[in-house]
């Protein structure tokens, strides 16, 4: 199962998620509580292991886990309430929550069983200003914003989200008009709307992604981050375990038709390897996709290892890794879209030579200007 090159805390978490409680218990005396807390936070996994902690023998670890779970669950309940308030405030403006409480409801039949730390909302791009104003009236502030119409157009064209933060509540809302996960496989509001399902939380009914599109999105989202967070693999593990044979067929056909089968293969490979599962599915990939899948698999294990050993990527290494993932997953088109998307983040507009126009020249000159400014500050 897990390699000994990971930390004991990482192995402990994996064993719990795989419900190997006897082996997990054997590790409890070797655990560092601080390190375990760190990993639980990074992997957003406390709620997933909650039901299992009573099987542990170590009282100190049980108390630590219990406190963490309680704190996280209270935060989740707050997010659910915030989603309800959002729904009331948005009124007739259609929106589709992505992940968060609705995903928790889908996987665990309870909106508070899965850790989230923000709310991702998919909207129509033409509603961005209205949604922004509504959130401002609820006390949210833009994390960064566009200053001109041209900047807004560039943001809408090349980027995918706009962040707003409520400092009192400590809640971040991301307004998405694209779910890009991997450039080259953008999913917009209309695509999701066309096949949406509904989800009931309390007395509210939300539009949500159709189940096949949702699984596809989770696979691509996981790939784009090379599953450095175990929560994403745990989500897919639960989903895969619930699928019947007929649903597997529908899912594979859906992803094959969209040429995203490789991402499903990667997810299955990782879940099977890490958690010791076996799913009734054999995917046949072409040689190129097999190679890409293997590269991404290795990158994922490397990312998890860095997380488990608290090794952080330096700026350039992170930059190279991110774009390597984009290139491996989405080809040259994916890589270029990723580069452009980074450029139009509002934080980069300070480095635009041309404040309001000629976007591609801005992109060309941006890095030299950034470098000059950094050198001149020193």
């Amino acid at each position: 199962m897990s390699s000994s090159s990971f930390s004991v805390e990482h192995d402990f978490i994996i064993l719990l998620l795989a419900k190997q409680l006897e082996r997990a218990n054997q590790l409890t005396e070797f655990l560092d509580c601080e390190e375990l807390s760190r990993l639980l936070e990074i992997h957003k996994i406390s709620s997933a292991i909650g039901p299992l902690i009573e099987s542990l023998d170590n009282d100190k670890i049980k108390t630590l886990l219990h406190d963490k779970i309680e704190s996280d669950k209270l935060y989740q309940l707050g997010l659910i309430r915030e989603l309800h308030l959002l729904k009331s405030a948005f009124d007739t403006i259609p929106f589709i929550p992505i992940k968060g409480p609705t995903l928790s409801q889908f996987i665990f039949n309870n909106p508070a069983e899965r850790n989230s730390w923000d709310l991702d909302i998919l909207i129509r791009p033409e509603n961005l200003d209205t949604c922004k104003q509504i959130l401002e009236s609820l006390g949210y502030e833009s994390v960064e914003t566009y200053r001109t119409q041209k900047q807004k157009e560039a943001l809408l064209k090349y980027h995918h989200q706009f962040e707003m933060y409520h400092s009192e509540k400590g809640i971040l809302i991301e307004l998405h008009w694209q779910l890009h996960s991997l450039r080259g496989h953008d999913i917009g509001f209309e695509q999701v709307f066309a096949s949406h399902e509904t989800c009931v939380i309390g007395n509210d009914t939300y539009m949500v992604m159709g189940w096949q599109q949702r699984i596809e999105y989770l696979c691509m989202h996981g790939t784009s981050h090379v599953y450095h967070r175990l929560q994403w693999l745990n989500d897919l593990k639960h989903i895969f375990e619930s699928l019947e044979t007929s649903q597997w067929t529908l899912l594979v056909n859906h992803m094959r038709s969209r040429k995203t089968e490789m991402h499903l293969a990667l997810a299955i490979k990782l879940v099977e390897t890490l958690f010791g599962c076996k799913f009734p599915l054999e995917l046949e990939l072409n040689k190129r996709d097999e190679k890409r899948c293997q590269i991404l698999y290795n990158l994922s294990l490397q990312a998890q290892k860095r997380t488990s050993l608290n090794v952080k990527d330096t700026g350039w290494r992170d930059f190279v890794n991110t774009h390597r993932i984009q290139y491996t997953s989405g080809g040259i088109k994916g890589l270029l879209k990723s580069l452009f998307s980074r450029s139009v983040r509002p934080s980069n507009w300070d480095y635009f030579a041309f404040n309001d126009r000629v976007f591609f020249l801005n992109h060309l000159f941006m890095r030299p200007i950034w470098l000059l400014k950094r050198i001149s500050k020193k």
Partner: protein
Amino acid sequence: MKFKRNNDNIASKIHDEIVMVNIEKGNYYGLNAVGSDIWDFIESPRTEVEICEMLLEKYDIDTKTCRAEVKEFLKKLLDQNLIETFNA
């Protein structure tokens, strides 16, 4: 008369206890193990008698005490708008 959960509340279990929020008011609540058992039980509408019978099967308690405490607990839940009643 039967008691059932008010859908304005979202609950989540932590071992044998429950934390929940009323999404309209924003109030948070916690239920201990016995309270959690009752909360689970009234997922479907139940009478006070049915609730007591469930608890008597599970816990070592006399009927009189059980009825009094269940009555008091249900009143508290009603006062907080966590549950509602309807005639069976």
